[in-house]
């Protein structure tokens, strides 16, 4: 029977990558002076698992590599090896290497052979090359004796043999498969019936086995009970050889050997099929192609493990089930009540409805929480990253992670990963000064970068704080002028100056360092955060440090919205896009070329968007002073939306317009209001664009 193993690969990869993460955080957490045994054990177990799995599924290179790591860890675990900084570093490097190997295998791509060899050599050096022998099973097979006529076997099992789950009858049956046997049973040791203990064996056997059978084959049959029986073999032609001291040789038990390494065709009495059948297992999905060329292929392929599945804690699911149960009860109570409605039952009905509302709300929150994961998943890459970066830049940095258990939506977390990396890199690269600089300024040598996450209102707030040199306002200003982002004579508040760093193409690093200034830029960070419905703010004090504050909605599916009315139609503006709302002051309206209108708000002029015009609606009034202006902010800047009225604020569930329809410019989605009708959610950026286009057209 041939089993298609490839169906188990994905689980193996998922498990292994998780295992690698565990190894990495374990290794990072190891205190070299006083290594915690439990931590070492955990790291060891992870390596052991990966090794076992990769060997089983035929990923030999991975298995061999992991074996080295495992051996090293095993020695650390049982105390025969010291946990040193060097060995931990090497192990960390090995974890990286292994990640690359696994990714390459998973994607059937190439990997950087040089890197792998380098790390392997390093590991072997650490191990003093003592692991080489355990792999070459071939040596052990040297014991193979040649053809014999047959054997005489004296088999005297220990009396407790049955208690190990072994059965002499089975063993003798096995022998019978090797050749022709004749058995005589020796009952000498049988006591009187009254003294007989039913669970013990008092019998022994003399077995004559005829055939071309090797000693190895016989040893194999008795392999497991070596210590639990007296077994004497003599060739049918010659001298007896005791085989129970063969514990060492039995390592070569045929079940272990990966057939690929077998020099000759082994006789494998255990499997009734030729060994060649198992070869495909070992050679499958081998990273056979290992060109010396660059590792770009492997590096650029991101692991395709991006989930459409999610691990949920069982408690959350149970809670959900309970809530649904309660909902069902409430609902059936209501339908019963509904059958006979009288003045008296109305109050009960209302109570019931209130309860239903509560159930539904709680259910909704519960379901949302299922998609929530602690932010530690996003934070976990930073200790390693900061450690490596600070080493690379010759800085001393302590990373503090706070609020790791703060939960946020899985998708939001995945998308916030890259922006966070960029920001932390910035702090390390441009924020924290070198130890010498710091000392010269009366600061401690070690700089601190702190990541803090917490819930505030309906949002999650992530703060990245460093105690570095802060942002130099003048430098920013000058750069902005140089890049033509602003005019030299503009007067900006501190806040506005700091905001400039998010302008596209803006990079103040004198040298675009390989570390952070890849031109990817803060503008992309801001855009990513915007796309998630969040915002980003910078606070800084020169010489003291900077703090970047990111605010994100807890989930992508829910939005805090402001309902507005234009004529008979209700629309929703995401609260996060609203700056303020005000009554129109006619005097503040200026018009350009008779078409475009601008509203003067304090020192700035903002375009006015007459929503009814852009959307072709019928408003209460076209006179601006009859309605309200809502100042909103989008990608391209701010604008003033003219609406008839502001209705309430509420949390709305975002429904897609595109599922059954198509994207509409100016609209980001839809929601269902309490009365069951659909209200559209405005996309501020798109709306501002639309309005600009139409006024250009009109001009």
């Amino acid at each position, binding site marked *: 029977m041939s089993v298609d193993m490839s169906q188990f690969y994905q689980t193996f990869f998922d498990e292994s990558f998780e295992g690698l993460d565990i190894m990495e955080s374990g290794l990072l957490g190891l205190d070299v002076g006083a290594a915690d045994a439990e931590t070492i054990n955990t790291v060891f177990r992870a390596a052991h698992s990966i090794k076992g799995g990769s060997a089983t599924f035929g990923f030999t290179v991975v298995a061999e590599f992991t074996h080295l790591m495992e051996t090293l860890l095993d020695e650390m675990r049982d105390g025969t090896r010291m946990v040193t900084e060097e060995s931990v570093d090497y192990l960390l490097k090995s974890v990286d290497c292994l990640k690359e190997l696994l990714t390459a295998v998973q994607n059937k791509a190439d990997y950087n052979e040089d890197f792998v060899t380098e790390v392997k050599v390093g590991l072997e050096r650490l191990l003093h090359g003592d692991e080489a022998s355990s792999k070459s099973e071939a040596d052990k097979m040297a014991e193979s004796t040649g053809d014999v006529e047959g054997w005489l076997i004296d088999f005297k099992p220990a009396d407790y043999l049955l208690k190990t789950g072994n059965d002499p009858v089975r063993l003798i049956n096995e022998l019978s498969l090797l050749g022709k046997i004749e058995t005589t049973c020796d009952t000498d040791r049988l006591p009187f019936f009254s003294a007989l203990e039913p669970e013990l064996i008092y019998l022994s056997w003399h077995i004559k086995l005829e055939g071309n059978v090797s000693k190895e084959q016989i040893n194999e049959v008795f392999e497991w009970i070596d210590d639990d029986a007296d077994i004497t073999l003599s060739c049918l032609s010659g001298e007896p050889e005791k085989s129970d001291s063969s514990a060492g040789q039995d390592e070569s038990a045929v079940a272990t050997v990966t057939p690929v390494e077998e020099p000759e065709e082994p006789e494998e009495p255990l499997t009734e099929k030729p060994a060649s059948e198992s070869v495909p297992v070992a050679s499958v999905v081998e990273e056979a192609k290992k060109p010396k060329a660059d590792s770009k292929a492997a590096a650029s392929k991101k692991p395709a493990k991006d989930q459409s599945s999610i691990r949920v804690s069982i408690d959350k699911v149970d809670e959900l089930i309970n809530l649904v149960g309660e909902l069902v009860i409430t609902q059936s109570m209501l339908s019963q009540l509904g059958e006979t409605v009288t003045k008296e039952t109305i109050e009960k009905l209302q109570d019931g409805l209130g309860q239903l509302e509560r159930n539904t709300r709680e259910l909704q929150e519960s379901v949302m929480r299922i998609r929530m994961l602690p932010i530690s998943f996003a934070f976990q890459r930073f200790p390693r990253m900061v450690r490596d970066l600070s080493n690379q830049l010759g800085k001393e940095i302590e990373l503090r992670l706070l609020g790791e258990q703060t939960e946020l939506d899985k998708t939001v977390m995945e998308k916030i990963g890259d922006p966070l990396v960029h920001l932390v890199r910035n702090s390390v690269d441009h924020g924290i000064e070198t130890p010498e600089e710091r000392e010269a300024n009366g600061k401690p040598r070690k700089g601190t970068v702190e990541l803090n996450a917490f819930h505030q209102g309906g949002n999650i707030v992530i703060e990245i704080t460093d105690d570095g040199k802060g942002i130099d306002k003048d430098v920013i200003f000058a750069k902005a002028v140089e890049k033509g982002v602003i005019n030299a004579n503009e007067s900006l508040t501190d806040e506005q100056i700091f905001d400039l760093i998010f302008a596209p193409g803006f990079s103040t690093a004198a040298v675009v360092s390989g570390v952070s200034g890849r031109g990817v830029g803060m503008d992309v960070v801001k855009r990513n955060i915007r796309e998630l419905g969040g915002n980003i703010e910078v606070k800084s004090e020169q010489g003291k440090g900077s703090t970047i504050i990111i605010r994100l909605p807890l989930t992508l599916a829910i939005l805090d919205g402001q309902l507005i009315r234009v004529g008979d139609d209700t629309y929703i503006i995401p609260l996060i896009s609203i700056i303020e709302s005000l009554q129109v002051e006619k005097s503040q309206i200026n018009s350009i070329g008779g078409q475009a209108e601008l509203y003067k708000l304090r020192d700035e002029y903002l375009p006015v968007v007459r929503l009814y015009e*852009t*959307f072709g609606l019928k408003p209460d009034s076209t006179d601006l002073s009859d309605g309200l202006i809502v100042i909103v902010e989008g990608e391209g800047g701010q604008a003033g939306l003219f609406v008839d009225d502001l209705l309430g604020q509420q949390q709305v569930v975002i429904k897609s317009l595109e599922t*059954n329809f*198509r994207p*509409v410019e100016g*609209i980001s989605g839809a929601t269902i209001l309490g009365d069951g*009708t659909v209200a*559209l959610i405005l996309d501020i950026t798109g709306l501002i664009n639309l309005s600009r286009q139409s006024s250009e057209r009109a001009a």
Partner: protein
Amino acid sequence: MNEAAATQSADIDLGLNIDVEADQYLTFIMADEEYGVDILRVQEIRGWEHVTPVPNTPKYIKGVINLRGTIVPLVDLRERFGVESIPYGPTTVVIVLKVIGEDSERIMGIVVDAVADVYNIEDGKIKPAPDFGSVVSIEYVRGLASINEQMLIVLDIDKLLSSDELQAMSNS
């Protein structure tokens, strides 16, 4: 019952109902013509109710409605084919259909004058249609069938409401 249905009834009485030869069609009236759509595509039939208009879309996209939590667009067939609009009344009906596109399935509704009946029509009984100048242009017509000596225009719903069409429609 019409002739086609009568011949099928034998199979149905046997409780087999797995007749591969005939399909069931829901028929409706629009501008005095009778049209049919494959019943397997019909998700439900609703009365006309409040619709939320979507800005910057063609007139025949009346807007979107809430169908048990899903946002579904409504297409007014009269307006789509340039027939004079009639005010919506008590017989005005929305047929919610499952539209199968290249790589997606959508739910959309069409607003029609009234729903007629459900008929069994054998595949062979649907004849290719000549371009006879019907309201609905020929590319959306699968063929013609005859029910009680009345002509039934069998529609290709997927073509009629495909996303390409929607895109094209919206750009006009």
